[in-house]
């Protein structure tokens, strides 16, 4: 990607890849690997870089855990592609991950910015 060289890109944060993939599948419905990568990059406005060497093994792992399932189908441009979809278990997992993420980010931001209520009289 030519744009890649202009903006410094962040690798997907350790441990958040699951969340991103599951969330993407929840919003977009069944999607192939490339679609997932593109979607994440687009939504992050190309700030996140999806390494394929991470994405495909991650998809295998999520499938092994029963959070997503895959099926071969025909893509929009009439090619055979493997589509991934969220399972009921995956949905549960997604919500758990989201909650956890919210909690952590709340904590992190609270630590980073001294709370105005405390400082103000």
């Amino acid at each position: 990607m030519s744009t890649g060289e202009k903006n410094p890109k962040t690798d997907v944060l350790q441990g958040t890849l699951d969340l991103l993939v599951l969330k993407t599948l929840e919003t977009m419905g069944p999607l192939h690997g490339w679609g997932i990568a593109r979607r994440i990059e687009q939504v992050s406005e190309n700030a996140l870089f999806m390494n394929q060497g991470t994405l495909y093994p991650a998809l295998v792992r999520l499938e092994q855990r029963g959070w997503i399932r895959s099926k071969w189908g025909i893509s929009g441009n009439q090619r055979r592609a493997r589509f991934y979809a969220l399972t009921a278990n995956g949905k549960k997992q997604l919500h758990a991950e989201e909650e956890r993420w919210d909690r952590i980010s709340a904590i992190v931001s609270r630590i980073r910015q001294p709370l105005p209520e405390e400082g103000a009289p």
Partner: protein
Amino acid sequence: MIRRSALLSRLLAVFHKQRLEEELDDELRFHLQMETEENIRRGMSAEEAHYAARRSFGGFQQTREIWRDRRYLPWLESWVKDLQFALRSLARAPLFTLFAVASLALGIGANTALFTALHALVLRPLPYPQPERLVKLWETSMWHGQAGWSAVSVPNLRDWREQNAAFGRIAAFTRGGVNLAGRGETDRVSAARVESDLFPLLGVPPALGRAILPDENIDGRDRVAVLSDGLWRRRFGADRGMIGRTVAIDGAAHTVIGVMPPGFQFPPRSDIEIWVPLTFNRYTREARGSHWLEVVGRLRPGVAPEMAQRNMNAIALRIYPEDPTHGVSVLPLHGETVRATAQVLLVLFGAVGFVLLLACANVAHLVLARMGAQKRELAVRSALGAGRWRIVRLLLVEVLLLGVAGGIAGLALAWQSLRLLGALAGGQLPPGAPIQMDATVLWFCLVVALLSALLAGLVPALRNSRIDLQSAMRDATGSADGGLHRSFSPLMVCESALSLVLVVGALLMVRSLRNMEHLDFGFQPDRLLTMKVALSGTRTARQSTSFYERAVEKLYAIPGVTGAAVINLVPVQSSHTGSVFTIEGRETPRPGNEPGAEIRAISPDYFRTMGIPLIAGRFFRPGEIPDPGSVAIVNRCAARRYFSGEDPLGKRIAFGVGDGREGWRTIVGIVGNVAEEGAQSPAPPVIYAPLGHPVWTGASMSLVLRTPRDPASLAGAVRRSIRELEPGAALYLVSSMKDVVADSASNTRLLSQLLTLFSAVALVLAMVGVYGVMSHRVSRCTHEIGVRMALGAERRQVLGMVCRRGLWNATVGAALGLVWTLLTSAIIQRYVIGMSATNIATRVIAVAAILVLALAASFVPAWRASRVEPAVALRNE
């Protein structure tokens, strides 16, 4: 952490790898195409778009690798790969594989077989609840100057029971045999007389009926019997209606009150099948000096054997305040039961352990030798990036495979050899303990197999993992570790040492057996028949005497009988009376230091029949009575020990001491010593009295018959004669004296047979091992030999050089082995007959054997080395 479903999915994935990989490739290709198209849409040329897509994708192959690690179980897979590699390489070397597996199978098989026996006979807990709390109690005291232990008298038992604080219960019993009358013949069945407390003490109730009640331990109410399950099935067809019926035991009707569950034994590991009440009469109840009871106890919870020991010693001191040498020994029943068996089996275990070590050393040799050949292959792997552990693992997988194969073959071998062991050991093994393989044995076999494999493989693996890449790639025939002159080979030394130890052990046993044949037992065991006769019912000594006197007369009427006599205890069977006596005119000895002797009641022809020589005086005359005031004969040992410097003839002695002393009897003869307790024990002092003495003439006596024919051929006629005289008499333990003598050395025989077998196996293993090392060495030094010969070495010199190397290692090994045999000679002395376990000649023969074998095993490789053509050897790089 891998979840189970994920693990399963990854495991299963291995089986359709090809489809999965194709799918991944499709998926990645699709990804690339999408990326390319996207790039084209952004305005790149097709080619540019393609390369940009490839660039952004990153390493195709790397992605695949990471994906694979995720998709399958990479560690398992690499083990599987190693396994396949090992299988292939073993299949390529069938001879190596066959020999390695056979070596291990021999070692593992012998160990497994022996462990099976050890497990069944020694380790298995006794078949009672909480068996570890059961103990055996003996009285201990000084007995004519020596510390000894003895059975327990009734008054002492009573005091122990009343005063102890250590035992929940204690119970006395005696062993013996009874005549069980049934259809046709009267059977002799092993029986125990027991106190009623015994069954609750053991904690095993009868399967059928009830156990003995306390008031049945009283004379007159004791006509009840408890049967073993085996006897009940065999003799009474497992008839449940037997309870309440009567059977004739020793001619008296006894009511069957109970049948014990299958597998019940008491005493443990015995063949006893009937339990009847033990009763005490007026005499035994008060006779504190009459030691005849065996006693078991169950420790109270929380009481350790040592505490019980202290408690009992204090009681003994109260009983014998004047003699502090009295005590009580409290020993675990299990240990008491299995001690003798355990000793033999441990000696054998030492032997088979050595065989296994030899097998391991051999396999280590073979692996090392083969690795020389594989060096180039391993170096290639190493060069391609295989780490040290990866290479070690490869070799370990190979030896583990050998170990597992050896273990399986060994298990089969053990299964077969258990039958052999049963046949060899025969009556030697304790009865009623089935030797079976079970889960414990299988675990043992597995562990031994894996450990041997590791032992055999670890050293070569570690050594060969340090591969010098350059030199290994350059030439496969390098003499990196030393060449011909490097003469020390630890493995060869170990093999020689181990086989020497086994050979010495086997030689000692074989020579002991041969010594047995020529051993002087003090009588002539050839052409002598012996048997026990038991009369039914109770008899007075007078009645028994008259029966046995008539019996002897009748036996003389049998054609071929040249001598016949009666005695209370036949020599060599190692039963004893352990009695004390008083010598007229001597000071009263301190308690515990009274003169002691074995006492034998005999009919007049006993010495002539047995062939025991008269040293001085005369034999008993017919008609001489056993009563006090009569006569006695002493053996040479008693004469030496108690009448040194005096002539015993004409001196007077009396059985018993102090208040229990009988009337005086005059010594009229001195006879030769007899090995009363078998060949391994020194002859004890013996006093002979004429048949009829009330203590030593009972309903059950032994007969001895001399004949010029085969003694066994007389048995039928003897049986008929005795039956005519007394139809209810039981004849048992009918055997030639030669067999009795042989049986007394059955431990030695068992050891000699098994040790011979094991040492033969050891020698073969060692020989093949030495041959293997030397051939390997020679083949690796072909180049060196070529150089030496090119420089003028003669073939003879090369031959000598290789042979010397083999001999040198064997000598060092033999020396180490010798030291070991000397250090452990005390253990084996118990089974050695007629010589010392440190015997020199045995060692000389063994060392010679080892050296000859080492020479023989090195000769073929040495000869091959001497045939090397220098030109060929030097060209052949």
